């Protein structure tokens, strides 16, 4: 249970949140036309006759977009509807050439599913929580109006017109900004694992309509507002904070919350009315007569399922159980596609380089990947060229460390040189003298000299002052210029001190 509460004059208020996330489907062409979907092209350079709604043009469904939406549905363990249908949502706007958006109101492609958000004390999520997902439907995006091109006129760019979106509608299951933030991040992670959306919120590939209402704990849901087109996790959380507090203020001052559509002002962090319920469009939804119902065959569904990768929750559990990683490391490594991909490549390369099973080196690799390597890269700043840090080179460093040839400090020094110069770790260790001495003869000689020069301390140690052991280690390492293998030093010292 979330303990997030708004403290009002009349007591505590609970926030109820539902999200409608619009995710752009990763596909080369649009939902119903062959036009390109690449981001950032010249205005109106990716517009087919269909996208511009020329007379007599007809939509033809793009199977790849359907496939991606089905795979996404499977990834959230949702019911896939083998029979679905497209409906027209009718309204006039200059960025909507057809005068309607082809969407799915009555029979969506994907039915109920769910998504797990994990406990995170730091952000105020005390325990794991399952968030229900009501449906996913596919629909067309609209074009874009540009108001800064001319003093008195607006321009229209139809490049986005007809691009495929998945609308992923959650149940009103979230109770705090933190939960909503975790939901969006988790959803984004799943979409990116599946490869059905690039999750790039800055380019508008993912945006959320945020539904917020407040109530006294245990009471019925209050009237909700919907804040449109919020395009970052941080903004989603800001909208909820602001809206919840605003609604509490309204209610506590004797007013009522209007069911309305609102806009988020990034500059002020506030929301304002976009259109009230009275001005709400009557969208006159009806089945699109240009399109037949979408019927999915069993073979198609089987192919979709077979093409799904290991998903974040399963991967995280495997990292904990099979690789023995800590829950923290497992969660960090599985949050992003790039992170786990780099980790798994490095893990494989390291296991090969060392000649041990992956399980045996997983913790070492995880620590390197999550803490040591990022630390070195960060300390170098602009001097670091991460392209030099291939998996093979990092694995070679980890293998030398595992065999005792280099110390942890030397590993970092070698990695620094790798990042700056792109040289091979083994060659760096040799050339730069960055190797531990494990030669017992040389270490013994150094120890003998130190013990001889410090007879008084040897006596004290033997008299029970155990702490002096560290002094002897330090002196030996200093004499060896820090290159002695600490394990060998310890062992020899223990032998000689008796």
């Amino acid at each position, binding site marked *: 249970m979330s303990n997030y509460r708004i403290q009002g004059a009349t007591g505590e208020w609970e926030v109820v949140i539902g999200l409608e996330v619009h995710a752009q489907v990763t596909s080369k062409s649009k939902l119903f036309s062959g036009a390109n979907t690449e981001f950032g092209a010249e205005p109106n350079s990716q517009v087919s006759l269909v996208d511009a709604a020329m007379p007599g043009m007809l939509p033809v469904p793009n199977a790849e977009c359907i496939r991606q939406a089905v795979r996404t549905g499977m990834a959230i363990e949702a019911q896939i509807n083998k029979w679905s249908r497209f409906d027209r949502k009718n309204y006039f706007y200059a960025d909507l050439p057809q005068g309607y958006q082809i969407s799915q109101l009555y029979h969506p492609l994907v039915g109920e599913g769910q998504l797990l958000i994990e406990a995170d004390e730091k952000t105020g999520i005390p325990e794991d929580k399952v968030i229900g997902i009501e449906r996913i439907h596919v629909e067309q995006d609209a074009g874009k109006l540009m108001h800064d091109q001319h003093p008195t006129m607006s321009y229209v760019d139809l490049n986005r017109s007809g691009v495929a979106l998945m609308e992923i509608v959650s149940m009103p299951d979230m109770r705090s900004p933190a939960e909503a933030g975790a939901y969006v991040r988790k959803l984004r992670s799943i979409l990116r694992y599946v490869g059905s959306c690039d999750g790039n919120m800055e380019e508008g590939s993912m945006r959320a309509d945020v539904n917020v209402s407040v109530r006294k704990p245990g009471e019925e849901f209050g009237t909700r507002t919907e804040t449109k087109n919020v395009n970052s996790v941080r903004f989603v959380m800001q909208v909820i904070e602001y809206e919840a507090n605003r609604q509490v203020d309204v209610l506590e001052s004797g007013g009522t919350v209007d069911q309305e559509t609102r806009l988020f002002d990034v500059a002020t962090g506030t929301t304002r009315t976009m259109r009230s319920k009275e001005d709400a469009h009557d969208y006159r939804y*009806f089945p699109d007569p240009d399109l037949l119902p979408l019927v999915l065959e069993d073979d198609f569904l089987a192919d979709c399922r077979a093409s799904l990768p290991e998903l974040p929750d399963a991967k995280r559990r495997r990292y904990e159980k099979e690789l023995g990683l800590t829950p923290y490391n497992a969660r960090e490594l599985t949050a992003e596609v790039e992170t786990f991909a780099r980790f798994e490549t490095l893990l494989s390369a390291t296991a090969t380089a060392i000649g041990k099973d992956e399980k045996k080196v997983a913790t070492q690799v995880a620590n390197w990947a999550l803490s040591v390597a990022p630390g070195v890269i960060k300390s170098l700043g602009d001097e670091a060229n991460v392209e030099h840090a291939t998996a093979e080179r990092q694995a070679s460093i980890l293998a030398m460390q595992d065999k005792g040839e280099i110390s942890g400090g030397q590993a970092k020094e070698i990695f620094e040189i790798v990042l700056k110069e792109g040289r091979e770790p083994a060659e760096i260790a040799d050339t730069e003298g960055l190797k531990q001495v494990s030669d017992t003869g040389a270490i013994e000689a150094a120890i003998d000299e130190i013990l001889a020069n410090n007879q008084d301390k040897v006596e004290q140690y033997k008299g029970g002052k155990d702490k002096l052991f560290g002094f002897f280690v330090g002196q030996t390492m200093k004499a060896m210029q820090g290159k002695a293998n600490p394990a060998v030093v310890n062992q020899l010292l223990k032998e000689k001190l008796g």
Partner: protein
Amino acid sequence: MTDLTSLGVKAIRDGVASGDFTAREVAESFNAAVASAAELNAFIVTTPDHALAAADAVDAKRAKGEALGAMGGVPIGMKDLFATHGVQTTAASHILEGFQPQYESTVSRNLWSAGAGMLGKLNLDQFAMGSSNETSYFGNVASPWRREGTNAAMSPGGSSGGSSSAVAARIAPAATGTDTGGSIRQPAAFTGICGIKPTYGRCSRWGVVAFASSLDQAGPMARSVEDCAIMLGAMAGFDAKDATSLKMDVPDWEGALNADLKGKRVGIPKEYRMDGTDEAIIASWEQGKQWLKDAGAEIVDISLPHTKYALPAYYIIAPAEASSNLARYDGVRYGLRDLPEGAGLQDMYAATRAEGFGDEVKRRILIGTYVLSAGFYDAYYNQAQKIRTLVSQDFEKAWADCDLILAPTTPTASFPLGSLNDDPLTMYLNDVFAVPASLAGLPAMSVPAGLNPDGLPLGLQLVGKAFDEQSVLDAGLAIQQRAGFDHAPERWW
């Protein structure tokens, strides 16, 4: 030499192929006929150069001994609902005046590939909405027919009124039509020609200005059943650009034509005996039954119990779809834009659409918007869809007892232009016999059956099972052979 304009599709194609005359001679003759028939107002624009260029290409092919195509050397009229590359395409509406598509509709492209040429773009009811060709922004079309002893201009039917008028007047050997709720069959019946609406999905809708997508279907209009079979073969075919296109091979309808109806059962639906149907129409229906019996068919009585609900359901579904399909004409990207001084976007929409659309189009947009509105959707649109299903089921059940259906095409013969202008409901009733087959997506054809006592043509309608255009054409041929309809309107234009 024969007057080439008296020839139909087959005679022209075969004559060109055998060298009796050149395609260019044919094109020149029809271009001249079109130019001399301006009083009919059948064409919105004429394209004599298109017809000549296509003819020259066919003549050149013949010189080289190449195949000339199923429509080789035949110049046709193109209903101005089909997008034609670089040639104004208006749907007879002011809102598209001057619009020149940079694409060619699949059906017209198919026809050009088969060797046809274009005489011009034919007038029609605006956005194919009308049954008399009086809603065109470019003026009424007159039928070449007149009531005996009168000079009143008669309706050529609608919406394919330019097509029917041109073919009946012999200024085109054939023309394309489109049929949403009778727009091929009713004008064909009014003007004494043949017209077939094939099974929904036979002809691609790509590049055809949409009226009601779930009903719109293109088809040929010509003066004989054979000519319709030939031209339909050239128009039809699967098109990946139309999601409702039938993924089926196009049969050789012309080659399989057979007027012997032995073993065929023809259903006579009792519900089509409606009050207000002309005596002459009933008589011609009776005559039609006899002709089909003579051709070997068995006549059976059938029932299509939901017939009386079909027309009301049609006038909900078709306007609903139209209200949405016509939303794209908004003044933003092409066509008319009316931007009053200081106007915003909403003002521009209102001004553009008020100026651009005719009254009948506005009426249907209003009806369609109303029936889809929150609170009315279930009572109207959903209810109409249920009726549509019941009408289809009526036909499905009837096929247990018969192979095709014979009925009148229209409840009356043609009427004078202007006579029904104040009575849209009576106007809508023109399609009462045509609409059921449209709702069910079935192939249906009108063939001339004779003249009424006023000397005006009457049509008989044949409705077949889905995909069975052949039986419809065969029965049409049997009627054609027995009716011996060789009347032509007397030239007054």
